[in-house]
């Protein structure tokens, strides 16, 4: 069984890196989708099944905060957890993103092991992977 993952980041190289680290981590990934900002992520989420969302914060267009706000308002975060990945590790930022409904927060730099641990934590046992 593998999880479908949506990576939301405006940097193509960062999306590639996250894919790479996911593979290195041993986390079971089925379909791995990418979006360059919150708008693209919402469009994907309307048509595709996603088990977990990995999102950056600062992005052109809809940023990570607004994405979480929208997903929270639509009830998506109740079934699809979001893990925020950011360079910003200030306490205020972390609190703000968790308050918006993010299930977890991971600051860069991070190891494959840390990514796997965070994913297992945010997924818990509430999501049975479909992919």
């Amino acid at each position: 069984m593998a999880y479908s993952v949506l990576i939301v980041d405006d940097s193509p190289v960062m999306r590639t890196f996250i894919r790479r680290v996911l593979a290195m981590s041993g986390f079971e990934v089925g379909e791995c989708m990418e979006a360059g900002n919150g708008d693209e992520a919402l469009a994907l989420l309307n048509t595709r099944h996603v088990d977990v969302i990995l999102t950056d914060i600062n992005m052109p267009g809809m940023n990570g905060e607004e994405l979480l706000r929208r997903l929270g308002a639509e009830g998506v975060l109740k079934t699809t957890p979001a893990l925020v990945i950011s360079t910003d590790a200030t306490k205020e930022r972390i609190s703000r993103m968790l308050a918006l409904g993010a299930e977890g927060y991971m600051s860069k730099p991070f190891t494959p092991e840390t990514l796997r641990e965070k994913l297992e934590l945010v997924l818990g046992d509430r999501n049975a992977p479909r992919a």
Partner: protein
Amino acid sequence: MPPELEPLPSASPGLDRTDGLDQNDGLDQNDGLDQNDGLDPAPALGQTAPGLQARMDQEPAAGDTIRQIMAEVLETMFFTQAELTPCEHGWLAAARCARIRFEGSHCGEMLLGVAGEAADTIAASFLGLDAREPTGAQRDQVIEELSNMMCGALLSHLWPESKLTLASPELLAWQEWPGTGALHRCFLAPEGTIAISIRLLSRTGEPGAVTGPAEVAEVA
């Protein structure tokens, strides 16, 4: 004199100055700062903040933190290592450089320079490619990402209680910042040399107290 600090690109529309980013919010006296840092009323545009510590080179933990963060970022995300090295800046004329500005509780900018051959290899390591595989665009994006990670991690470590917004990195030529209170370090990785400078700016874009000579790392 550097150009004025321009308004930051709004990559994060919800986090501009109208969004509650009060300059003193979140700072307390236990965040490792001088007692005056960030606790004085924020200076109005064009004014000097009385008692405001504005020299990065005088931030007690900054030197060690840069060293620690550089090592951690390179090892964890780029699968390489780097150590402090004496500064010889001739190579920087041909380096790949990115600048990233930040504002909020602290305003300033960070400059990262990576030697040309090192930029290609570091980009390849980041992307899991062979050294000659990354395109020029990918190499530049990786340099931007490295500067973003360095700046975000550095500021978060130095001032974990702060509220900061980082602008998008910009690629440009290396700039020397003598006499501006900038903190500067050079690192040697197997791939080549990496330089980093960071300084605080006032709201008008002036460097912090310009009272001393250029502060460049002296490495034994």
